[in-house]
């Protein structure tokens, strides 16, 4: 469990997350991609905190902020899904092209 191995794991999570975010059609699956990216980012932040920053509290704070971002992203994302579904019965990004005009 060294810093490079930890970072490779987080890189793998971020890579999968990016694939998911770009490829998924439905909102909810897209949000899963974002979550996975943040998952990797949090792992990286904690690894740096533990192995290079000697436990400086900012490292932990960064992770908490990442979690907060995730929570807000999820809550707002789902709220939008509900609002959009109610208006258009749509749950995919393509169906929302109308919003861009």
């Amino acid at each position, binding site marked *: 469990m060294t810093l490079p191995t930890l970072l490779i794991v987080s890189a793998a999570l971020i890579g999968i997350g990016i694939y998911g975010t770009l490829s998924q059609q439905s909102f909810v699956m897209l949000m899963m991609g974002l979550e996975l990216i943040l998952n990797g980012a949090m792992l990286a932040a904690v690894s740096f905190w533990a192995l290079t920053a000697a436990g400086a509290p900012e490292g932990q704070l960064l992770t*908490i902020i990442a979690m907060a971002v995730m*929570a*807000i992203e*999820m809550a707002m994302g789902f709220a939008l899904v509900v609002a959009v579904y109610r208006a258009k019965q749509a749950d995919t990004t393509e169906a929302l092209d109308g919003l861009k005009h």
Partner: protein
Amino acid sequence: MELKQLLVLLLVVIITAGFGFWVQHVPGESKKSIPWPQRAPFLGGGQPDTHAWSRFHIRYYPMTLLLIAFEMEMMFMYPWAVVYVSEGIKALAEMGMFLGILSIGILYGWREGAFKWQ
């Protein structure tokens, strides 16, 4: 020190899971196939039109979203609790802010009917 605690926790997990799988394992189950009539969902003699797994209207969904935001606040409260006594009056003021925010959230949610089943 912490790692030793985690090791015990891991052992507890492994031993209990092993026990659980052992209890659940029915010898010879894979050989015996369960007939289809027995597998059908029990509806008191009635029959379903469709699969049970479908888009189900979870009627308390506004509450779940509110919960995510609440939960995030909790994330800040645990470290706060540890330093509460040593930080003294500042921490007390902080708690006031927390509870204030959460109460406003609850009040607003209540007024808008977020805790009712839609």
